[in-house]
């Protein structure tokens, strides 16, 4: 079976979610890979949400907010603008391709732009392939875990 990327889209209530709505009412088609989450402002997006999404099986995270200068809360999207590059740097240092996280500005009237972004991003993530994270949960039965010490009392005091 071919790889279908899972993408979490975090959309601001005032511009981007409405823009996505416009794409929907205008019957514009885009891949169904994105699960959208509505937040009140892109400034609400804590980098923890992004890490949480990736740690729980998302292959990419798309964040959309109002264009700079258009924020409903005056400067929320600037906060997001400052967070994302640093978050991408953390991802890169963690060995995760920073292209898996994208920030875009989508206004309420840009249904077509939203369609284009989601389509492009989905194809980019498809090309990057599934995000494989390892050691997310402790497994004592991994082969590199020697079981020689199962009975601590018997073996340990010999060295």
């Amino acid at each position: 079976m071919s790889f279908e990327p899972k993408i979490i889209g975090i959309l601001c209530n005032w511009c981007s979610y409405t823009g996505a709505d416009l794409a929907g009412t205008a019957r514009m088609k885009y891949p169904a890979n994105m699960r959208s989450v509505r937040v009140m402002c892109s400034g609400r997006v804590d980098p923890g949400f992004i890490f949480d999404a990736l740690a729980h099986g998302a292959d990419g995270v798309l964040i959309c907010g109002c264009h700079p200068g258009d924020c409903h809360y005056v400067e929320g999207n600037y906060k997001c603008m400052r967070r994302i590059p640093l978050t991408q740097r953390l991802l890169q240092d963690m060995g995760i391709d920073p292209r898996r996280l994208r920030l875009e500005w989508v206004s309420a009237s840009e249904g077509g732009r939203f369609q284009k972004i989601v389509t492009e991003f989905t194809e980019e993530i498809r090309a990057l392939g599934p995000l494989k994270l390892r050691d997310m949960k402790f497994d004592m039965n991994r082969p590199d875990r020697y079981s020689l010490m199962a009975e601590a009392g018997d073996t340990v005091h010999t060295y």
Partner: protein
Amino acid sequence: MTKPKLAVYWAASCGGCDIAILDIEEKILAVADFFDLAFWPCVADFKYKDVAALDDGAITLTLFNGAIRNDENFAIAELLRRKSVVLCAFGSCASDGGIPGMANFYERQTIFDYVYGKSPSTVNPDKVYPQPLTKVPEGEIYIPAMWDTVWTLPQVVDVDYVIPGCPPQSDQIAAVVGAVIDILKNGKPLPPKGTVLGATDKSCCDECLRQRDVKKIKKFVRPFEIIPDPDLCLMEQGILCVGPATRGGCGAKCVAAGMPCRGCYGLPANIRDQGAKMVSALASVIDSTDPEEIGRIMAAIPDPLGTFYRFTLADSLLRRAQV
């Protein structure tokens, strides 16, 4: 009447936590008076087999410091979990992975290659690496095998309480030990499982005495580059301080002395990832709305991953560098 038993163990740790316990000064006498010492490798010669010979649940309180990064650490963690009524993750290594947790930036092989090969003080032309099993004329000898990934104690066994800090501050240890003795002596109920002892729920900033105004930064500096104002918030002076994303309880001692918080008390309550929270906090203080300028300001942070996750990488959402 037999005394309740106390155990203290060090796994992947530096020994500082053990010293911090001894640092509670004369109160250590009350501990020695009230408890029977069942196991404490740092201060006396106990054998694992003696602990294994105890009944399950025979130890009343175990203070476990150190991360879990080899099979010996893990075996003793399991053993002490079985033998203890109350198991405390003591110190940042046990609770969050601590400094050893930063090994999760690399693979085991990369670490071995450096330590036993490339490091400037090493001469190892035959590439001799430690092996878990070695044959000698007398038989086979065994040393614990190092794992690829460092784990926190709560990730590998069930833990009752957490006492954070690198090391936990002695006044906090004394308070916790006093409370434990009080609870055991007077039959009081234990705090709910999972409680973080010896610390507050708020951030380090909450205890910091420095003056805070509106934070607006155009440039990050490293502590040696400036002489910081003794009364003003370090972050406002451009010094990267992890206080906003760190649990309070230490009394903000480093910050009071002019050094930025390194984050050893781990996450404040209701926060899941220290690095993510620190990114959030920094993004709020940078004074720019121009992507290029933001990029330049951010680029001046030398090692964001190592700075934000200095003590909590093993407990972070992404856990380790994914190679």
